[in-house]
């Protein structure tokens, strides 16, 4: 305790040279913080409560929460096995596979939406097969989930993959020596030890899905109560009801900051 205080005083004396770091940091922090403060200040008006409970806002909020949570479940159900396989592959084989899985993260959402339409749309690659099966994806809530999964699930896979590969090899070897089979190894060793990584992956995925806009608007369209998620209602609010847009924005910011803070706490304790 004492020694750390001494160091702090020393650093404080060195404060002048720190300006080189503080000033640029402040510029960037200002860029992040000012728009948020402006939004919160403007949305704090007498109509805010009324806007928050308007039918459009509530429908958008419900749809966003339901679809994004289903996306998280899908990402976890299908992403965990995939991440597990990736973590066990030799590094030479998986470079391209990992790059492919990271692609949706960096791809512009408009490209994602167009690609989804060309694959699963009525005239798409699988369109006629889906039509035969009686499935019509575009303009449905299911399409919202598909779009969200496309852009957000890779974040879960990435986090889970890192989590699995950080599990101590010796623990794995020991379990094998003890006679654990593949399933036991996965459920009793890997998942518990990578639990925090899985949880933080799920939360990041949830947030990304909640904020999804570009792919959804192209692939799912915009219909209140069916495909109009929060980001969509916010976008349309610019034209008509700025109050609803601002209230939804503030809600989205509050949910996001809480979940991101929780994720950071998890991550800081992981390794």
């Amino acid at each position, binding site marked *: 305790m004492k020694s750390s205080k001494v160091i702090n005083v020393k650093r404080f004396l060195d404060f002048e040279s720190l300006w080189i770091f*503080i000033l640029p940091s402040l510029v960037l922090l*200002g860029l992040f913080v*000012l728009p948020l403060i402006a939004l919160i200040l403007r949305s704090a008006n007498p109509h805010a409560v009324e806007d928050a409970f308007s039918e459009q806002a509530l429908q958008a909020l419900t749809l966003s929460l339901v679809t994004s949570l289903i996306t998280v479940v899908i990402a976890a159900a299908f992403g965990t096995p995939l991440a597990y396989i990736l973590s066990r592959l030799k590094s030479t084989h998986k470079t391209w596979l990992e790059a492919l899985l990271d692609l949706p993260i960096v791809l512009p959402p408009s490209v994602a939406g167009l690609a989804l339409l060309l694959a699963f749309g*009525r*005239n798409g690659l699988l369109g006629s097969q889906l039509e035969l099966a009686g499935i019509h994806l575009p303009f449905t809530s299911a399409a919202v989930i598909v779009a969200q999964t496309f852009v957000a699930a890779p974040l879960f896979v990435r986090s889970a993959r890192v989590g699995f590969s950080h599990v101590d090899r010796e623990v794995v070897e020991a379990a094998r020596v003890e006679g654990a089979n593949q399933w036991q190894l996965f459920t009793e060793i890997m998942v518990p030890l990578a639990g925090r990584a899985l949880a933080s992956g799920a939360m990041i995925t949830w947030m990304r899905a909640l904020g999804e806009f570009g792919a959804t608007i*192209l692939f799912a369209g915009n*219909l209140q109560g069916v495909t109009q998620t929060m980001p969509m209602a916010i976008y349309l609010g610019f034209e008509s009801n700025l109050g609803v847009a601002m209230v939804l924005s503030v809600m989205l910011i509050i949910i996001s900051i809480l979940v991101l803070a929780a994720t950071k706490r998890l991550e800081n304790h992981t390794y």
Partner: protein
Amino acid sequence: MKWFLIFPLLIVLLIGCSKVATPSAGLEPSPNLPTRLSISTPQAQTLTVFAAASLTEAFGEIGTIFQDANPTIEARFNFAGSQTLQAQIESGAPTDLFASANKANMDALVIAGFVDGEAPRLLLTNSLIVVVPLSNPAQVDSIQDLAHPGLKMVLADETVPAGRYARQVLDKASRDPAYGRDFASMALDNVVSNETDIKQVVSKVQLGEADAGIVYISDSIAAPDLKTIPIPQDINVSAPYFIAPVIDSTNLDLANKFIDYVLSADGQAILQKWGFSPVR
């Protein structure tokens, strides 16, 4: 503990910035303003035109002809949604004239003092048309077919002028016995998506995801791969576009010269070619 020192600084920064906040802080101007870098000779005059996105093709052609007739003039265009252009002009974007697809955006600039109240002139009118994919999967052959149950129709959202006009068309049709009183509500039941701009409606129909859409005639001219079904004049709308020089223009003569040209018989003929209805 030293990071605490950041907070007073941040607050100073905040206060400093709030002083310069403009009244229109809610509208963020998009950054796609024309650049001021000029490669032309110093004596060349530059005319900067802010025009509604739907005028892209028509004004592009008019600009070329205008420049050919006036070799010392260089015309630059910034095409975007009228509401975006309005926000850009309000935040001080340098421009000489504004062509708006909406009376409201022009009126807002008059009220804000960027355009003289007497200046706006009717440029053209735009009407609506039904578009269907070439394959016409839902076999839409008439306006009445839009009310067929199960048809997938896309419109522009009600917040977009084109979306409001499309609903006006459906309402007008409902008052006509030929369509029936339920026509508008049945057609609106078929709406699977309210797109955020009119070009999205065109794309959804082009991709064959929607069976039908209602767009401006000018959009259908710009997308020749679509089948069109005309909307009769008695139930159609005529959406007025306005053009006016901006008060702060440094090239007022030039701006008026351009306006005179687009309102001339030659200019109006080009607009007509691109699907607009001339006003003379």
